[in-house]
């Protein structure tokens, strides 16, 4: 079995605001295998972006506080590094792609210069060599190298996202964190961009944490999936475990909420209610108020992740319904 290149252990991140403490992330465990693609699915406010920012050491200051946990990269805890060391890790070892390609590029620098800058931040190359490498990377993401002299506003949305990918991959990082990389794009462009990411990952053997709310994107791009709800992983496993077994009631709800193109359903089955307020999380299971299986115990006790076997014996579910089948951790 492949090694874990990135391992998140019991990570809790809270935002301390005037209105109260927003418990954005509560004891999240997640392991990213070498060369694999791991999907993180959740809705707005579930803590997806907080997780990505926590790993990258980009917590908004002064509100964001890491309450507990470790982020192990090659066995080294990233949370213990100082600013200088963390900057070396970012870009060269772990890169990130953001949702909005419109705002993640500098409008007053040419695209080529921006890629060059990210190369030269981490590698000692002459301007000439860096420029050559930048052009190679542009070609790799499917942009003719002559466009290196152009400015971001001369590119369309899909092209901009390719440039962002080029910048992220410029230094051959081992881990790529993609936070909703195609949400702002049209379907045909989304398909192109995802294909580009897939090709490059194969070429460079990059591991990816793909954050999205689109189950279709996950199914087509990831080998492993974690479902996050109210700052907790509620189900995790291989993509076949999750899509085939759908054990957690929330996972089931997500699937029945989306209209499927291949099946005709006259009526969707939504999840009732809303996600709990992250400043006042319930004592018991966070999903219990919206759950059709909820029992008296669910509002009282907090379920832990139960091992469910599965394809690679990694399938885990946070629900009392499976307490008998598996063993608590």
């Amino acid at each position, binding site marked *: 079995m492949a090694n874990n290149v990135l391992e998140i252990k019991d990570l809790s991140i809270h935002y301390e605001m005037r209105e109260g403490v927003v418990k954005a992330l509560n004891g999240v465990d997640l392991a990213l295998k070498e060369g694999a693609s791991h999907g993180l699915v959740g809705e707005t406010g579930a803590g997806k972006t907080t997780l990505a920012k926590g790993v990258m050491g980009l917590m908004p200051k002064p509100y964001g506080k890491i309450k507990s946990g470790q982020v192990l990269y090659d066995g080294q805890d990233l949370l213990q590094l100082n600013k200088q060391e963390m900057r070396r890790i970012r870009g060269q070892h772990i890169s990130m792609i953001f949702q909005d390609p419109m705002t993640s590029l500098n409008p007053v620098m040419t695209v080529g210069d921006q890629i060059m800058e990210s190369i030269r931040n981490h590698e000692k190359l002459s301007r000439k060599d860096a420029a050559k490498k930048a052009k190679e990377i542009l070609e790799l993401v499917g942009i003719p190298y002559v466009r290196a002299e152009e400015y971001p506003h001369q590119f369309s949305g899909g092209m901009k996202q390719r440039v962002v990918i080029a910048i992220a991959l410029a230094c051959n990082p081992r881990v790529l964190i993609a936070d909703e990389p195609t949400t702002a794009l049209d*379907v045909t462009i989304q398909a192109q961009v995802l294909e580009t990411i897939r090709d490059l990952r194969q070429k460079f053997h990059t591991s990816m944490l793909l954050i999205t709310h689109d189950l279709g994107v996950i199914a087509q791009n990831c080998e492993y999936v974690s479902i996050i709800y109210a700052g907790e992983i509620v189900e995790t496993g291989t993509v076949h475990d999750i899509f085939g077994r759908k054990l957690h009631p929330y996972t089931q709800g997500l699937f029945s909420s989306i209209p*499927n193109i291949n099946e005709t359903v006259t009526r969707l089955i939504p999840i009732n209610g809303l996600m709990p307020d992250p400043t006042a999380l319930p004592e018991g299971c966070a999903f219990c108020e919206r759950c059709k299986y909820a029992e008296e115990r669910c509002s009282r006790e907090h379920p832990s992740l139960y091992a469910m076997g599965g394809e690679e014996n990694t399938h885990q579910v946070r629900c009392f319904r499976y307490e008998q089948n598996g063993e608590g951790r």
Partner: protein
Amino acid sequence: MEGNELLRVNHLKKYFQTPHGTLSAVDDVTFGINERETLGVVGESGCGKSTLGRCILRLHEPTAGEVVFEGKNILACDKKEMKSLRSKMQIIFQDPYASLNPRMTVSQAIAAPLIIQGVYSAKEKEKIQKKVAEMMDVVGLASRLVNSYPHELDGGRRQRIGIARALSLDPKFIVCDEPVSALDVSIQAQVLNLMQDLQQQMGLTYLFITHNLSVVKHLSNQIVVMYLGQLVEKASPDQLFHNPCHPYTQALLSAIPIPDPDIPMRRMVLKGELTSPINVGPGCRFAKRCNYAKPECSEASPEMVEVEPGHVVACHMAGAVNKTHE
């Protein structure tokens, strides 16, 4: 044709003058919608689908064409007639954050159309309160939220306010401009179900604009596909999804990621990206990106051809494309 036609759009055009030339956002669009049915309009950003919806309601003044509602060309109506027509034709917007006045409470937002249309005078507070409470109940908003401001509510609840506002005048026809695109999937399903229920209960007719093909398939009786301001295909959901005839429709359908890891995608690769419809030349607008394009495609605009009953497509190669795809 079964059913009564409630709305008909004939050769509708909307051109904008830009510094770079004439932008034909909607160019010669013709279709009809039957009463109590839903027409889905699908297309990518910039294809003119939102402009189309706004032109039908005369929120944008169309450049040319006809919009016939209940047998009457509304583009010929004067201000007064238009104002009374507006109570029958409403719109639900995409962004529930931008479509509500941040300085109006829920009850004020829902009551505003009633007061503007003169259903109640502003002084009849009791009656207005009653109607607001009734509308909030219809769209499933808890009555304790009556005096909340939009920024205190989540996206799903805001969209419910938007729906209540549109329904308060008891309209017949509603333009839904991407009503669920900004919402999370679990909330999206709640709102879609609500809209289906309301259609049944109140006998509504929808023009449902979206880029989400699975949503449009789920809801629509008829679907039109738009590309750069023009209709390229019109069919029932079954026809469109099982037998897409226009190369663009085929590409669009093949790009949807299927939520099943065991069904691999067979994506059709499209050349280039969507351009803006400024100073378009003659010929098919899709020709430059089309895998089947022949020289004649860039010479003359394709006419709408019927390939099977109720299924029309605007493509010179309609028959041929269809066969190669099969």
